[in-house]
């Protein structure tokens, strides 16, 4: 670090005695299951409405009817999955508190993929459905691409949805930068809006039943508006009330920790184990957000994040200076200290995945006896290692650092059930938190499951991109 090299985060700018933890994140009684039930119920209601407004009769009265019925039902489902996906991506507070942003977005991905498939089926059933009344295949296609009112909009809107879905396929997504993908992803708002009108003018159910139509249009507009404004309200809010960089310090060769403070911190609620979406409001960086875990319990003195140099945005953090503004969304995530209950915690972290571990250890009771397994190539690469050791010792726990290159460990999977039970006492009755690269998370989960740790006792934040 050449520029303003600063304080160690543990001795922060604000006077120690003045700082107190931020309010804990709000809790909710909503469970993942409740969300599933609501979604299933919505599908059931729409299916019933479809069946009762003639859909079911159509199915059982000959092919041309059946095609139409299928076009209608798949159209309704396509739209519903779109609406579900939209709602999930809006990160509404109650839903986020219930299942965490990572799961919201992973569910969003499932909804999006499903929507893509259904859209294909919808298009391929609507063509035979309308061929008899439109004079053959060619005429139908011509109608659907512009001769029928609103169908040019629909066709282009669907194309945009299709592009968004295709770009989100893992292999393609990995070839383009996160921001390129994200900006294209935003065009889906336009795509969805553009393909709306035809639902009303053509839909068997919607064009004919006044009350069903009223409910459909009303809820579509409500969901769209909620998602759009709900999402962007948070973005503007975070930019309008940014935090300020209070301190930057180098932790290891390629990680720096940043303390974000200021008056606006008091508006936030958060806890150890959560993460924030950060947007540096400096030249060349303001248009990117990146998720980073809190590496210390958030207090009135500020939020500490510890950032590893991985690419454009993260490397730019090294150039941050005290006073720079940072827009912060969140904190998000549900792996707060409550997940451990009365059980002994087990932390498995790889690389910069130690960050939430460091924060969570600060919040554990002194008799919790946690075990911390850290995976790194070398001890000097583990950020906050001495802090972690001190914190673990304070609550009667142990820290193990598994060093060496992964290739050198070949054959001796450090996360197999056998290796784990050798180092971790009382393994099967623990609550485990796993953070780090995806491969590590999968390996650790497999080992833990084999060692008899129940599924509900394994917590991890799956990446969502």
């Amino acid at each position, binding site marked *: 670090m050449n520029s303003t090299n600063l304080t160690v985060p543990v001795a922060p700018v604000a006077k120690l005695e003045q700082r107190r933890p931020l309010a804990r994140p709000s809790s909710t009684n909503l469970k993942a299951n409740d969300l599933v039930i609501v979604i299933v119920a919505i599908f059931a209601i729409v299916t019933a409405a479809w069946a*009762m*407004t*003639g859909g079911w009769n159509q199915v059982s*009265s*000959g092919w*041309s*009817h059946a095609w*139409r019925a299928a076009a209608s039902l798949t159209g309704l489902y396509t739209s519903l999955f779109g609406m579900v996906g939209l709602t999930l991506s809006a990160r509404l507070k109650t839903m986020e508190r219930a299942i965490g942003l990572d799961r919201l977005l992973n569910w969003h991905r499932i909804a999006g993929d499903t929507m893509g498939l259904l859209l294909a089926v919808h298009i391929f059933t609507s063509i035979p459905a*309308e061929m*008899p*009344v*439109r*004079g*053959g295949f060619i*005429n139908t296609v011509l*109608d659907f691409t*512009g*001769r*029928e*009112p*609103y*169908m*040019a*909009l629909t*066709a*282009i*809107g669907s*194309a*945009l949805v299709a*592009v968004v879905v295709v770009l989100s396929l893992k292999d393609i997504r990995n070839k383009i930068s996160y*921001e*390129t993908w994200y*900006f294209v992803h*935003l*065009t889906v708002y*336009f795509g969805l809006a*553009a393909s709306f*009108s035809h639902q*009303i*003018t053509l839909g*068997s159910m919607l*064009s*004919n*039943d006044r009350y069903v*139509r*009223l409910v459909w*249009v009303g809820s579509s507009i409500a969901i769209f508006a909620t998602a759009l404004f709900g999402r962007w309200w948070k973005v503007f809010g975070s930019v309008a009330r940014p935090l300020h960089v209070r301190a930057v310090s180098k932790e290891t060769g*390629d990680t720096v920790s940043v303390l974000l403070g200021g008056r606006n911190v008091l508006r936030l609620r958060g806890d150890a184990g959560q993460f924030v979406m950060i947007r540096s409001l*400096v*030249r*060349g*960086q303001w*248009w990117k957000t990146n998720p980073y875990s809190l590496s210390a319990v958030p207090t009135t003195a500020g939020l500490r994040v510890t950032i590893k*140099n*991985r*690419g*454009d945005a993260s*490397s*730019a953090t090294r*150039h941050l200076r005290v006073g720079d503004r940072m827009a912060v969304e969140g904190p998000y995530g549900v792996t707060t200290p409550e997940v451990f209950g009365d059980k002994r915690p087990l932390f498995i972290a790889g690389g910069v995945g130690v960050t939430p571990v460091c924060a969570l250890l600060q919040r554990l009771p002194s008799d919790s006896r946690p075990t911390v397994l850290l995976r790194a190539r070398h001890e000097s690469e583990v950020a906050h290692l001495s802090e972690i050791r001190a914190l673990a010792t304070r609550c009667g726990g142990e820290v193990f650092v598994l060093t060496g290159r992964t290739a050198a460990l070949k054959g001796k999977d450090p996360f197999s059930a056998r290796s784990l039970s050798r180092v971790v006492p009382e393994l099967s009755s623990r609550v485990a938190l796993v953070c780090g690269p995806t491969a590590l998370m999968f390996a650790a989960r497999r080992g833990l499951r084999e060692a008899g740790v129940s599924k509900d006792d394994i917590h991890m934040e799956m990446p969502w991109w």
Partner: protein
Amino acid sequence: MSSDNSSPTSRFALARRLAPALALTSAGVALINVLDRPVDLSASGSAGVADIGGSTEAGAGQTVTGATVPAPTTTTVTAATVVTSTVPPVNGATPDTTPVTTPAPASAPAACGAKKSTGSTTDIVDRNRVFGTLVVTAKFASNGELCGVAVNFDVWDRKSVQIEQYALPKLNARAKKAKSANIQGVSGATAVSRAYAASLQAAIDAKPL
């Protein structure tokens, strides 16, 4: 890794990443404008079904939940209609391509329509949903035989207009052939077939003697 880059990011980073999204959106908007060539339904109402002496009226556009739908539409379809396949299928209203033989007006000018009778105005209903109404006018030859049918319908959405324009010529043809209201319904148009048969039966029942 660009870790040793002295400048945080290259100047065009944002432009480069924004370009695909902007290109896609502008291409989309442009294509919509190029492709969007909706065929006016009111024109297709008369083009699809040429009628003799019937009045083909398409009402002014009426707004149904934000979408402009020309409705209500009143169209007269008569059995004395020659629908040729040369009429281009316009916008969904594919005319019945099987030509309906017309009683040539010149050879038997008074033969058909010597007597006329108008049936009941019947709702086009599927379960509890009403799409509109129709009323059938039956024409009889001097011998009392059913020889032609004209229908006036009044429906409220564009989809029904399409279905009616598709089904009514067929129904007219079938009625003329069967010389009664005892006809097979048109598949895909059950509601209108039922209403048609009912109204026609009423017209036949009320046949002037």
